[in-house]
């Protein structure tokens, strides 16, 4: 499913994506294209990309790529898939009931769950 969404493979791409996504929520999925839960999440992201395209952009990041380990380390990504939200180059934190407010770990049950999260992130920012 990862081929349906833009993939960022090096730090410069991620930097550019975060810095140049203006007045829209940027959703970055850190994961692995071959992982089962990542596939499940990618499916949901790909299906919702068009629906949220007016207020959000979605991109995938390979957590195993050497070039982006600085981001993996900065966001303390130890479990994949980890979904991180940005708005105007600001990292958006969210209280999803888990102790870690910096990222969303795992897939979403449905497409609507993801859309709701992005919508809340956009409206509250």
């Amino acid at each position, binding site marked *: 499913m990862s081929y349906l969404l833009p993939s960022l493979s090096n730090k410069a791409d991620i930097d550019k994506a975060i*810095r140049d996504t203006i007045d829209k929520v940027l959703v970055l999925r850190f994961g692995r294209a071959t992982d089962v839960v990542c596939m499940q999440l990618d499916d949901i992201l790909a299906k919702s990309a068009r629906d949220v395209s007016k207020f959000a952009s979605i991109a995938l990041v390979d*957590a195993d790529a050497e070039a982006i380990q600085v981001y993996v380390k*900065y966001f*303390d990504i*130890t*479990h994949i898939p980890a979904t991180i939200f940005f708005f105007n180059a600001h990292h958006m934190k969210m209280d999803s009931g888990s102790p870690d407010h910096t990222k969303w770990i795992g897939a979403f049950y449905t497409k609507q769950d993801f859309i709701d999260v992005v919508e809340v992130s956009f409206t509250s920012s």
Partner: protein
Amino acid sequence: MPDKQFEYCTVCRLNHNRGKGHKFSAKHQQRLESHLSKALSKIRDISFFLSNPALLRHSDRASNSFWCSFCDTTICELDSTFVCSNTIRHLASSSHLDAIKKFWFENGASAEKRHLFVVQSEELAKWEDACKALSTASASMEPSHGAVNNIPSICSSSIATCFEKFSAICHRNMKISDPLPIYKDGSVRCNPIKKRSLVDSGCSTGSSPLHFENHGETISQIGRCNLEQHSGIACTSLPLSGGSEGNVHTCAHPPWLQVDERQITDAYPALDNLNAAPLYRKGNRSKKPLNPKRVGAAWAEKRRSEMAREAAGEKLQKGSENDKAWLPNFGGVWQSGSRRETRKEFESERWLDIERLKSDKVKALQPYISKKQRLKEGAVGIATSTEPHNSN
């Protein structure tokens, strides 16, 4: 005409006493046609899975059921591994064939179409072979797929086990009821996450010392949990090099603000090739004015102007945005000071707003001038302005 016994026609949904003559009536034939076409479309949908067997997700099992109008039964897929497996077996069963024959006899449908509503035994055998092949392939390729399907049950039990293990340690050392953020010390990190709306979550394996951070206090304990194998979440190891930069938890300087100019220029061609949904909003701002107090509004304006200058070919100063004010100023208790100070500040601001509103209202007050008077004044004005011309 002798009175015949009343019968119920399931196709027409009415009681009649016309006996066997009813099934030859035009209305009955018409309704029978629509009934059969509906049933046939449903069976054609299922025949897709007969030729292309697929694994059924655990979450979809409850919503996957089939109503057989010939047998008057609902076939549920709660215990099936493949999509429509129970339905396919039902359509191939002898009881369904008998029901079809009975329906055809009672309603007078054409016998030529009867085979379309039944799954043949050869088709069933082929489907079963394909299912076996699929199950062996999925078992060999994705051993954790079964675990993913059983996430709701497994996750709750595994999380509970994890919490039990940690609560025993936590109770001895700190007065907390809920597990708090746990940060790693070394290369392994344990992060028990409550399962509410997440699909699943888990803990990494390891026997390294784990740090329980509670309002500034750090308590080191040795914990061990093996939830990774039960949950579908995979773990990654953090890079070991460069441990002094800090991370998002320590409010370290974010990497996207530490940008090398050469890297940015190199990144352009790679990103221009993205042909999926547009990743960036290129200048087409919405007509609705944006909230000036939105997060990063200043950044957005600054960056937009920078991008415009970049597009014009100007070279930006390296690290121009790399200042200390990159964090948004939320004000109040989020920034500094106590709640009392925040309240004072808020009340003073509100007072100022009220004062400003009052002053605006005072300025706006004007005596009422009627329309007639205004017209008269206007006419006088015009007359006075035209007088010099007339005199000339």
